């Protein structure tokens, strides 16, 4: 989220169901790729290669319940981010994926109401501060869960690494911020 803005815009690139697991998002065979940028090439490789082929910067992935269940692999969130996803909206997230997304600066937005109000290619405006998702294509608005202030702070900083770099590097005994 460049500039620390709490509002972002993007088109719905995919509408997915419940329990999209981390192996679908990023297959285990590529876990030895540790350059985050390079993970993008394998996003949804086995399950939905068409998403990877079509994704444009700022695109939004919309999904059902328990998005990112399974492994703790941070590459799942990294692949989404570096493939260009601007945000993931889901009815709910598995806890480790949610933390990973925020820690990497990828907005993970909880909204049980968004998916039914979206179609593919709709343009969305996500207001993280107000907890609202405006569908600019059909004019409808759905609420999203308010993000914890720590999450907002991390997203504004671009993730945990830049946040820690800036804020805590000179006072090592401070606590490590994160959120869930």
């Amino acid at each position, binding site marked *: 989220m460049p500039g620390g803005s709490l509002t972002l815009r993007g088109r719905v690139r995919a509408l997915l169901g*419940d*329990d999209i*697991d*981390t*192996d*679908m998002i990023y*297959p*285990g*065979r590529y*876990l*030895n*790729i*540790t350059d985050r940028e390079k993970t993008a090439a394998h996003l949804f490789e*086995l*399950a939905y290669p068409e998403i990877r082929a079509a994704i444009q910067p700022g695109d939004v992935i919309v999904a059902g*319940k*328990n998005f990112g*269940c*399974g*492994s*703790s*692999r*941070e590459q799942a*969130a990294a692949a989404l981010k570096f493939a260009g996803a601007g945000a993931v909206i889901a009815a*709910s997230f*598995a*806890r*480790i994926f949610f*933390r*990973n997304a925020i*820690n*990497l600066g990828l907005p993970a937005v909880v909204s049980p109401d968004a998916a039914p109000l979206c179609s593919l290619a709709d343009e969305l405006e996500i207001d993280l501060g107000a907890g609202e998702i405006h569908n600019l294509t059909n004019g409808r608005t759905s609420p999203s869960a308010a993000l*914890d202030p*720590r999450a907002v702070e991390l997203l504004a900083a671009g*993730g*945990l*690494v830049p946040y*820690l*770099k800036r804020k*805590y*590097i000179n006072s*090592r*005994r*401070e*606590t*490590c*911020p*994160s*959120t*869930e």
Partner: protein
Amino acid sequence: MGMTLAEKILARASGCECVAPDQVVVARVDLALSHENADLVRKSFLEIGVDRVWDPSKIVIVFDHRVPAESEKTAATHKAVREFVAAQGIEHFYDVGRGGICHQVLPEEGHVRPGMVIVGTDSHTTTHGAFGAFATGIGATEMAGVWMVGSLWFKVPSTLRIEVEGEFRPWISAKDLILHIIGRLGAAGADYRAVEFDGPAIRRMSVASRMVLTNLAMEMGAKVAFTPVDEILLDYLRPRVAEKLEMIAPDADARYERAIAIDAGEDLWEPQIACPHSVDRVQPLSALGDVPVHQAVLGSCTNGRLEDLEVAARVVAGRTVHPRTRLIVIPASQQIYREAMRLGFIETLVAAGAIINPPGCGPCVGVHQGILAAGETCVSSTNRNFLGRMGSKDSLLYLASPAVVAASAIAGQLAHPVSLVKQSEPCLVEA
């Protein structure tokens, strides 16, 4: 007000007298576990610009996902981590051939005690709740923060209480119980929550069987899961742990979000199978009909322990793996491997036609040592059957108990051990 185990441990680790669900606390971390992904942690750590880890005695690194290195890329990762371990003076490092699967090595080597807060860059870190620890998985970048400061934010979870009574039927094990529970609650049934397993049937279980429950609780989304801290557990820990051990228990008036009662005898008549491609698609074995099996895998942090190898050896003894099937066996650790050799289990398994992989995660992560081709079906004692988990996206993966994996290897299709072994004894090893 009374507290659950999760609340008690988080209260103490955060210096609070009392905590309640949804409260956010900063807790001291007692142990930070990583495997090969220590390389990702290392990169984030160096990117932040920190020069030293907070406490080199509290970090444990175990290579298990790709052992021995299956590619030049992994070899370079292993090498980079080894050099980081040496440079930082990280005290507990288990290299190739020295340990095994991290979740087995941690308790085996005496790193886990009741009441600890453990974070690991592996989702199955929940396993250590079988030792009374608040143990949960986190991502690599978050771990870099822990390496830096030794503490972490947690939202205090609400707790599900699962009480199990009754006698397990012959050949029914902890794996069948937890698959049954996941089938009932769903893949998100315990999302963000703590789970306490208790009741007479749990208290009779071996430590190895309890680890199956806390390990797989992750597959219904649990943040942490516990089995009781009792004499059986302390008997396991005493020879391994130098520090003083304490009994911890939830308060009698602790508040639970929900309580679930299960009768192991009445609710579990036959083996439970998780069908492709989700761990909560659970069916009783007899509902599945004839399912030919090309590969059977016995191992993993879920079911690669001595009692698992023992029950498999009992099933395959004097028999031969079916011509269309490959049986892959992976002891969870070097210690288990040696003990299984000493007791003759390895000999029995190999004589039946099994191939033994080195201790580690093996094919469970879909990297090496038993990858599936399109059109193949595998029955596995592991913990995930997601699309493409063990290879081709056009392969099918069924999760089952070690007894069913062994029986299926012999039958060449999903099979109940009772169809092979006349002597019908419980496969649940009681402590």
